[in-house]
């Protein structure tokens, strides 16, 4: 027996699902943005074991599907060491954070390496400390360089969240799909596109505004 549902019911339920999607999005950014910077410094380190370790991790993470990584992080510890399974949200946040930190780290590295050596040297001969040179001279130029690739990656993250349902994280696609089983309806699935589009549109506007704000100088 199929249930009768209205457009309003579906909208409310998808909103709830999209909130779950946004949770993955927010938590991932919160952890991946700083972790990426740490990995970037690691992979630029002159201490070879650290550099090698960071670059290997980045290679593995960028070289395998995110969906597979979710499955490995969720089931792997139990299968290998007989540990208890992680909570589903924990496994999702952990996998997404590590995955995105690796992508971000390469963007950061590109941005940092694009800064001419002369900027550091100018700071040095003016008696600035290394940390002052990084934070007061280099950082804003790096941010300006990395905004376009970062916005790309962050918009990809919005849609990658739908992979989380592979380990039963209930996000918007999961909510929409359930209408196929319970009400024989497929349009709620198509309707999810509106939510993604609206949010990605907002992000596009936001990044456009940041780019405009930083357009007063050329780096």
């Amino acid at each position, binding site marked *: 027996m199929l249930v009768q549902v209205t457009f309003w019911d579906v909208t409310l339920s998808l909103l709830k699902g999209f909130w779950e999607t946004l949770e993955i999005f927010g938590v991932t950014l919160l952890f991946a943005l700083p972790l990426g910077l740490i990995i970037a410094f690691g992979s630029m380190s002159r201490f070879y074991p650290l550099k090698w370790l960071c670059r290997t991790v980045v290679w593995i993470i960028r070289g395998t599907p995110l969906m597979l990584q979710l499955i490995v992080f969720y089931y792997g510890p139990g299968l290998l060491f007989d540990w208890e399974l992680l909570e589903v949200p924990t496994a999702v946040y952990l996998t997404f954070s590590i995955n995105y930190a690796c992508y971000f780290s390469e963007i950061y590295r590109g941005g940092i390496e694009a800064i001419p050596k002369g900027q550091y040297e100018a700071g040095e*001969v003016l008696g*600035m400390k290394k940390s002052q040179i990084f934070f007061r001279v280099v950082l804003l130029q790096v941010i300006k360089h990395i905004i376009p690739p970062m916005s790309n990656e962050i918009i990809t993250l919005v849609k990658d969240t739908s992979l989380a349902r592979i380990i039963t994280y209930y996000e918007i696609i999961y909510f929409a799909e359930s209408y196929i089983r319970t009400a024989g309806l497929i349009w709620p699935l198509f309707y999810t596109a509106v939510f993604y589009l609206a949010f990605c549109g907002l992000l596009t506007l936001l990044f456009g505004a940041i780019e405009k704000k930083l357009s007063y100088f050329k780096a």
Partner: protein
Amino acid sequence: MGYFEVKNVCKRFGDTQVLRGIDFSMEKGQVVSIIGSSGSGKTTLLRCINFLCDPDAGEFYLENQLLFDAAEKRSLSDAAIRSKRKNFGLVFQQFNLFPQYNVKENLCLAPKLLAKEEPDFKARKKELYAAIEAHAAELLEQVGLTDKADSYPCELSGGQQQRVAIARALMLSPKILCFDEPTSALDPELTGEVLKVLKELAQKKITMIIVTHEMAFAREISDKIVFMAEGVIAEEGDPQTLFDHPKSPRLQAFLAKTEV
């Protein structure tokens, strides 16, 4: 002993011995120009003097005090290098202004950061910053860019950027101001304005070391010319003698090439 003295400075990059024992000295208020063909080690010497490059051997003496000895460089902390470096200023070929700061901020950034290290900074912050800003305004007037104080580097011509860079280097009142080919990145019609600023500094008896390819300018402004070739000082002396009566064949050949 001179005001500033460089003794036996050697530097090797991989298999290339770039500096093979450089000795020279200069007096306070003098202008020394270093000339020579590309690859002769001029820029490397200037970078060593400014602690951007570690010499393998050699010593620097400033005001009769040992300032730097390559033999003990490993024991120098970053803080020690920073404090020694304050004796020198360097103007780069490529200006290296900070693009995200306007002209005034480019001048004030480093001095304001240094002011934070003053013991009574918190109590005197306003006073210290006001003095720095007044000094910046004064130097901008000196280089003729008062009206560009609020402009960003990307809005300035190369010549204007280099004049800002000179003012920025002067902000910390270095004892010796060094210039690394200050006009080489400029269009020919823009070199004049930068050279004019250098002449005015020379008249004010600012001690300067200038690496340059502008022979006529070097001759006019310098108290002493140092000619470098293959990592050594091949000849040095006052401009008239050196340009009109070069002794070494290498300098003769070099001058013949540059006087097209």
